């Protein structure tokens, strides 16, 4: 046992970490260059910024502050929980992360990466990080803008709510949840796209799984992104009908535990993806 440990230590000491770091950055840079500002990413920007546009229009056509700030806080909570987490980030990540590997298989350009002197784990990690950067850039700014627009509407009162009231804490929570959602969904869609030619049906099943998750046994609840995120929401909303499923009260989970839950789940899924990546074969004709 001790010998094994010694061997592992020696192996670890021999690895070219500097090279890996340089290569990782090169992969991320390449991926970012090719995908972030590409036309085919346009629909994802669209997905991210629809609520921003709607909120923006609302402030323009309805400057009379017909609704109160308390109500708008609820509206924002609704947009975030029902739109961003369940739809916007979900499908945005599906688009961004399933093109990382599968997209390059469809375009028949993945082999250029596999023929480079880079470990496949580094390639995969670099691609994943690039995907995260794209997703975070889009959705963090969209969520931030939605939040800002809603409260900017109320002038000084809005400013007081954000600066002196609970506003800033809520913004932080939204931004944090958005980041976790991008990581969690991203890793899962990356793996699904490596397992299936067309990951969309699997993603729909996953969506269903996420939806019914709150009423499943607590062990199964651990394998879900949204069920962790629920415990982090800064504003709870009363929901009715089927939507009540989204807010079923289960055993409370502490914020740090929920955060760790998403991170661990992401790490596990990325780990499995690395393993798949090592076994990956280039067979464009039949894929």
């Amino acid at each position, binding site marked *: 046992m001790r010998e094994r440990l010694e061997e592992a230590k020696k192996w670890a000491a021999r690895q*070219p970490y500097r*090279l890996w770091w*340089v*290569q990782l950055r*090169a*992969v991320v*840079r*390449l991926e970012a260059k*090719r995908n972030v500002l*590409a036309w*085919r990413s346009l629909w994802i920007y669209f997905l991210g910024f629809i609520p921003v546009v709607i909120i923006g229009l609302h402030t323009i056509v309805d400057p009379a502050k017909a609704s109160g700030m308390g109500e708008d806080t609820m509206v924002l909570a609704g947009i975030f929980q029902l739109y961003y987490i369940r739809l916007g980030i979900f499908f945005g990540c599906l688009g961004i992360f399933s093109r990382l590997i599968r997209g*390059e298989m469809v*375009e*028949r*350009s993945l*082999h*250029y*990466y*596999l*023929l*480079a*002197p*880079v*470990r*496949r784990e580094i390639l995969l990690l670099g691609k994943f990080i690039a995907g995260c950067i794209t997703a975070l850039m889009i959705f963090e700014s969209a969520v931030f803008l939605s939040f800002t627009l809603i409260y900017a509407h109320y002038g000084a009162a809005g400013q007081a709510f954000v600066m002196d009231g609970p506003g800033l804490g809520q913004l932080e929570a939204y931004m944090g949840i958005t980041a976790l959602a991008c990581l969690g969904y991203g890793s899962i869609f990356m793996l699904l796209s490596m397992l299936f030619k067309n990951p969309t049906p699997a993603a729909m099943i996953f969506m269903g799984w996420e939806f019914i998750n709150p009423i499943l046994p607590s062990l199964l609840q651990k394998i879900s992104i949204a069920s962790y995120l629920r415990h982090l929401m800064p504003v709870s909303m009363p929901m009715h009908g089927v939507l009540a499923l989204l807010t079923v009260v289960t055993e409370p989970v502490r914020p740090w535990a929920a955060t760790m839950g998403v991170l661990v789940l992401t790490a596990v899924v990325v780990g499995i993806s690395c393993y798949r990546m090592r*076994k990956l*074969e*280039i*067979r*464009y004709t*039949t894929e």
Partner: protein
Amino acid sequence: MNDRIIFDDVSKFYGEVLGVNRVSLSLPPGITSLVGPNGSGKTTLMNLLTGLVQPTRGSISVLGMTTMDATEFFRAVGYCTQFDSFPKGVTGWDFVFDGLTLHGIGYEEATQLTKESLERVNLGEAAMRKVAGYSKGMRQKIRLAQAIAHRPRVLVLDEPLNGLDPMARAESLALFEELGRQGMHVLISSHILEEVDRISDRIVLMTGGYVVAEGNIHEVRQEVHEKPMQVLVRCDKPEMLASKMFAMNHCVEAKLHKDGGGVFVRTRDLDEFYRLLNEIAAEGEVKIDVVAPADDDANAIYQYLIGSDGGLS
């Protein structure tokens, strides 16, 4: 230091479909040409060599390395595949340069190597344009440039002459020859033997997933020459034909067809066989309807060989 490319009893099945079967090769440096008809397993063999697909059985090593250690392996190996596709939106220059940045080398060195390899393939000004607007030959060239940019010791080229005009073809062949002379391994695949036989140090003849002959051009001709080939002759008196054929010493076997309307002849010398068949036909005793190769693979190979020097001699 091991300087060979070694295939040790390698087989690859795509599900039920045979890619290559029981290939054992040990290739020294120089130019090796893989020659065979469509679907004979050339690309499969090259993909196996570079780890794009994994062998179902057997093992492969290149200069003592395997693809398990990707970093070391792909510094030494360059592969220009048969896939005529590129990352979206790249220019020729970016395509070569981006690949080099993955090696972990600096900007200056990468720029230098990119320039050098683009000069080698004679792409000129076009390098600054988007690859999407290239002609087939230009795409072939830029892919070649990408494969040689990091100065590999082993260069694998899948049908590198496809789509090139005669000028470019001659230039490419000269480049391969030069690289081979420098002691590199250059592995080239082609459908057409005469296209590559002049520059090849070694030929590996493939058909149906098998290596059927290996060696220099003369050895390969000899080897195929000695392989008996089967021909089906449809005629009105198969028994008589069979007995006439049996009298010849190049005829290994003559077997009647089940329906009694033809005979399978297995021969070591097709030229001699056809000459004799013509004689028999001219005598008029046996009326010959159809002569067809019953052994497609072997015949395809035979076609390559007679295509290249006008006959087995």
